[in-house]
């Protein structure tokens, strides 16, 4: 007896409600983009400059007292959040303190950190700074540029690769799916105000890779079936290909999700945002390879005859007796 998530033979019609799915995707993208425009991302210090301090104390975290203790130093905007994780010990109370970037291009100096620690020690005796990270605004600006270039470069490289291996319609479909995934991921981060830092860029690129992986597997089957069933119309071939690969699509997504969810639950709070991005990306990526990439391929149409060169010159023998 085997565990089967997908019946042996499926014949779903994935394009029956193509317009509805495309509409939903477009709507989600608009919502995500609007959220990004109006609410903005909760940039971490990598991108905005500033300092984060992770404190650990055996006393419970009193955010108000921390704030008052730090206010005297006049460092501008200071935000304090308590961090919870099931893995923490009973008397382990962790807080994240974030201080805005100071005016000069430099990182915050060690002496300031020491005075901050002294002030906090008065509120929570024995407080430890388990990590201190400080990024000057000069570097953070460059990090944003590099990140944007990285994502753009990845998408462009992939576009070229698929164009070479398949046809341009495939490349466009795949890239549309990628853009869809990236926009939705950024949208989720802006909507939920999850901290967006360098690691999330890594997650975004992995999502790009994963979503592509899925799309390419479907497209590979489409290419094969187009050669095999020359008479079937495109929608039928696409549907057949998606159905044939459906079992694999679901299997791979489930194994990947199993791994990611265990990391999300057990991997500690430091990388939780990163893992969340990936979980979201796997779900969205799987959806988009079926409902976005394939649908766009269907709308664009594709050259069917793979054996002969296109005959664009007309009938060569047609003018002989003229």
């Amino acid at each position, binding site marked *: 007896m085997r565990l089967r998530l997908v019946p042996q033979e499926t014949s779903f019609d994935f394009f029956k409600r193509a317009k509805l799915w495309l509409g939903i995707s477009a709507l989600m993208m608009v919502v995500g983009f609007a959220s990004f425009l109006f609410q903005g991302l909760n940039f971490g210090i990598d991108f905005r400059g500033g300092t984060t301090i992770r404190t650990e104390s055996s006393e419970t975290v009193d955010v108000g007292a921390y704030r008052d203790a730090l206010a005297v130093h006049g460092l501008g905007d200071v935000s304090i959040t308590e961090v919870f994780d099931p893995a923490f010990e009973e008397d382990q109370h962790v807080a994240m303190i974030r201080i805005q970037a100071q005016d000069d291009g430099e990182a915050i100096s060690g002496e300031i950190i020491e005075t901050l620690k002294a002030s906090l020690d008065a509120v929570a005796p024995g407080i430890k700074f388990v990590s201190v990270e400080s990024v000057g605004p000069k570097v953070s600006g460059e990090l944003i540029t590099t990140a944007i270039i990285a994502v753009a470069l990845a998408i462009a490289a992939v576009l070229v690769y698929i164009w070479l291996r398949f046809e341009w319609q495939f490349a466009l479909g795949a890239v549309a799916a990628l853009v869809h995934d990236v926009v939705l991921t950024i949208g989720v981060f802006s909507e939920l105000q999850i901290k967006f830092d360098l690691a999330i860029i890594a997650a975004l690129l992995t999502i790009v890779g994963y979503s592509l992986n899925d799309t390419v*597997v479907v497209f590979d089957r489409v290419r094969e079936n187009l050669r095999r069933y020359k008479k079937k119309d495109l929608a039928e071939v696409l549907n057949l290909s998606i159905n044939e690969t459906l079992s694999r699509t679901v299997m791979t997504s489930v194994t990947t999700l199993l791994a990611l969810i265990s990391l999300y639950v057990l991997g500690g709070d430091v990388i939780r945002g990163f893992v969340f991005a990936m979980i979201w990306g796997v779900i969205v990526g799987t959806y988009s390879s079926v409902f976005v990439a394939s649908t766009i391929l269907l709308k664009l149409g594709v050259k069917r005859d793979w054996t002969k060169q296109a005959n664009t010159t007309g009938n060569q023998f047609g003018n002989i007796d003229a």
Partner: protein
Amino acid sequence: MLQIDLWKRVLIWLVCAAGIMLALPNGFYTRVEQANDAAADIIAKGETPERLEVAGQWPDYLPSGLVNLGLDLRGGAHLLAEVQVGDVYEARMDALWPEVRDALRPERATVGTFRRQPGASDQIRLRLSKPDGMARALEVVRGLANPITTLTGVGANDIEVSAEGDILVVQLSEAEKIASDDRTVRQSLEIVRRRIDEVGTREPTIQRQGADRILIQVPGIGSASELKKIIGTTAQLTFNPVVGRASDADASAGVGNKVVPSLDEPGVYYIIEAAPVVTGEDLVDAQPSFDQNGQPAVTFRFNTSGARRFGDYTAENIGSPFAIVLDDEVVSAPVIQSHIPGGSGIITGNFSIEESTNLAVLLRAGALPAELVFLEERTIGPELGQDSIDAGKIATIVAFVAVLVFMGLSYGLFGLFANVALILNIALIFGMLSLIGGTLTLPGIAGIVLTVGMAVDANVLIFERIREELKAGRGPAKAIDEGYSKALSAILDANITTFITAVILFAMGSGPVRGFAITLGLGIMTSVFTAIFVTRLMIVMWFERRRPKTIEV
């Protein structure tokens, strides 16, 4: 049909065995690390029974390469420093000024008197009292220039001399500035490296980044500020003639002089000549010691040219004070009692023993040619790193078991083959990481967990294909063969595209993100290898032995 040459079989198993062997030391991390450290100590400092015993904890014949743990896992400090390359221009101009002065003096008849004007610090501006003599002045000063070789500038000189009305301007040429910047950064890098090595920490990363930046990562150090103290922002030692004393920092010093505070007497300032007689660059040795009163002090010795200049200066200036200046603060300003010929001396001040030791280290390592400005500072405590390792371990094991069980339930025997391949896969990733000395970071662990999830993808593709072929009525051998060959193009295309993104991440990312790119990239390579070769070999071997009439996948 289902044949694999013997040499291929042997090669595949050899690769797997090599991967396991290379990965093995990581299973005994602390023990191997201690053994490696002891072995290194034996080479560096000689054998002792304890060291031999610790080194014997891990047998010689096994590989001993370990995966480096990144800062986020081991704890430590990370600094990104920008070298203020412009500082050097000023020092160069100050050094050039006496030469310009001496060259123009004999020409007083044509150029008249001249004075150095205040202005940008990377220029010398001279006002001539006889502007008609400018042509001659330019000629004389240009005679001081040295030709430099660059890739493009043929016949370029190190200084540029021009006239602005009655003012003669001397500054470094663009070509020389570029060359000087490069030298400054390389010199700074070398000095930072020497200072960190003096402290003797484990595997520091000290890299140049871009034109004028230095990335410093030192695992195991308490905090970024501790690291900054070791790097000691400058420790520039100079010996300057003293012009006079002042009581506040804004006292007018006169051109070519500067006002510096005293190190231990508050409110006391000295006016000194900006061009030093000797600098710390001429030092050959510095040691912590005690002066005749038993106070901690630092003794130093100059090299030959430094000793000669110091000797000549002290001979000519008996009775006048000179200042020992450290980082623009006067440590002491003794009056020269006699000619000091030997080129050695002692710096006394109100030092503690620790301070005098640190100062000696800093002086020995040499001064940084320019100031470092820290753009990025990160400290990760060792506890946080350990927490992350523990969490990462548990998460990886749970993820692993979940995927193993799921594959077993879904594909039965074939699932077991895939599982063996998955375990080999992880061993291969760790083996490769150890081999190339890669660094494992927290996102890197995430990369491995992601690989655990995605590594089965290639096998899933193949198994699903075999199922389809079986459904289409092919015999077991034919179905397996077709399954592999037909799934190949999808596997390659899918993994190459993911690999492209891993490469881009590696090229553009830094630190932890790069660690993620490495494990993701390695994971893709090993998972393709295990899927195409290892599981196939296992299935073929099983098939040869059993010759089943029907198979179920």
